[in-house]
């Protein structure tokens, strides 16, 4: 294992433990940083210790004691130092520490962008500069965002704990939402794909720490099933390749199997939630041998079980259209035109697709043109231009 691997594996644990024993987020991060710097000097000479995590935690804890002893002026601080010194061998792998950290970073009293940034910094160990690059903001802005979030945690006394059972139903979704947002940020943009990798890593950790929470398993399954298709979504020219035209032999079938197995064991718990249902939809697609084999009635039935947001309604209309024929799909999509989806590029794009399947070429052409005006990424524009050329030739 390289030091880089150890860093990625142990950083969150070291920081999480140090926050618990010192109660100071900035100090915890600084001491963790120093412990890794010390490892970088010592390990190449002395060799990697048997339990690198314990070594790093003890080293970081000793730095914290030194610092606190230097800074301690009041009696309260001195008592804190004394307590730390007596706690000679802190348990470094209290599994709850990282879960505590995860719940605290994702506390709903923090702004969403602060939760995401804090999670990436303290748990995943990304540098402030890396996070700033990932969210396209200047490093100083990101640094300020992190500092403010940590100050709020400290001043408002956001408790460093896994919430008690009666709060979990409302607080677990907040953690899942942060991880899913992180995943989607990375999934929607090739350049930032490392964010999806981090999201999957953190979701794996959450599944390990909350084995009885089926939505955590559902979320990880959902991410794995989407991610298995990552490399087949774009053509060589950068144009989007839609699900029905992706090269299924290039999907990561090992990862698909892992996702499906995870989903099955989550569903066995008999408490299906939105992430398990979305994962079930992704599994319908991922396990269909060809696009034509897709179980569209099942996909439509699953969409019906999700909260009916405008986008879910649109996807459900697509699934019904694929099951019952493009004329039915077209009618359903047209019914949505007046609603909150007006101006959303996937609405005319979907209408265009059904019109194309109905061979109504001139109408399809108009709809593709409309979608092209509203499209937001180059990949979509390239795809829509390709379709537009196809239908234009025929109209």
């Amino acid at each position: 294992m390289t030091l880089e691997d150890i860093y990625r594996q142990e950083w969150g644990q070291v920081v999480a433990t140090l926050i618990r024993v010192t109660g100071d987020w900035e100090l915890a991060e600084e001491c963790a940083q120093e412990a890794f710097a010390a490892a970088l000097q010592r390990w190449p000479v002395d060799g990697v210790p048997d339990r690198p995590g314990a070594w790093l935690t003890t080293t970081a804890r000793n730095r914290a004691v030194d610092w606190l002893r230097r800074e301690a002026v009041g009696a309260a601080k001195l008592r804190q130092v004394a307590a730390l010194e007596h706690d000679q061998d802190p348990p470094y792998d209290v599994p709850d520490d990282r879960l505590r950290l995860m719940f605290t970073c994702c506390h709903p009293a923090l702004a969403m962008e602060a939760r995401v940034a804090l999670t990436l910094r303290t748990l995943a160990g990304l540098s402030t500069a890396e996070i700033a690059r990932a969210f396209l903001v200047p490093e100083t802005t990101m640094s300020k965002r992190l500092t403010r979030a940590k100050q709020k945690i400290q001043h408002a006394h956001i408790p460093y704990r896994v919430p008690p059972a009666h709060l979990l139903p409302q607080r677990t979704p907040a953690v899942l939402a942060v991880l899913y947002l992180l995943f989607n940020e990375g999934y929607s943009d090739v350049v930032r794909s490392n964010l999806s990798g981090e999201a999957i890593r953190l979701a794996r950790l959450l599944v390990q720490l909350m084995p009885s929470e089926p939505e955590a398993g559902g979320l990880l399954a959902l991410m794995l099933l989407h991610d298995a298709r990552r490399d087949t979504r774009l053509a060589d020219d950068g144009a989007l390749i839609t699900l029905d035209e992706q090269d299924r032999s290039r999907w990561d079938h090992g990862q698909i199997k892992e996702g499906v197995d995870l989903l099955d064991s989550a569903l066995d718990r008999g408490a299906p939630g939105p992430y398990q249902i979305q994962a079930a939809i992704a599994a319908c697609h991922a396990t269909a041998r060809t696009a034509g084999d897709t179980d569209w009635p099942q996909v439509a039935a699953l969409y019906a079980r999700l909260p009916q947001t405008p986008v879910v309604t649109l996807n459900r209309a697509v699934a019904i259209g694929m099951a019952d024929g493009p004329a039915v799909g077209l009618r359903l999509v047209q019914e949505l035109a007046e609603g909150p989806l007006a101006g959303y590029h996937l609405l005319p794009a979907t209408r265009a697709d059904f019109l194309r399947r109905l061979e109504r070429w001139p109408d399809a052409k108009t709809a593709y043109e409309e979608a092209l005006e509203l499209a937001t990424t180059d990949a979509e524009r390239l795809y829509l231009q390709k379709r537009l050329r196809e239908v234009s030739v025929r109209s």
Partner: protein
Amino acid sequence: MICGDPSGTEYATDGCGGWSEEMEARGVVAGGAGLHPPHEATTVRLRDDELLLTDGPFAETKEQIGGFVLIDCADLDEAIEIASKHPAAGYGTIEIRPVLEPPV
């Protein structure tokens, strides 16, 4: 109510130059505190039994402060629980602001 722009934080630890002592001696002070800045606020609303939390102060300027309560509790989760049980959380908005700790 004591108001000011963000530059006021520079004076947060200045104390009140004898004002507190004088007013307490006069017996006119019933309670009060300095507050951490608005970006450290948490806003609580209860709508249809759903607890809605927001980072930061209530945004709409037409909202008016109708009163305040000083509470002493363990942490933000307890403060949120207390705030969500106040009837005003159901129709209005409650902003939780941490109190400045007195300098040691």
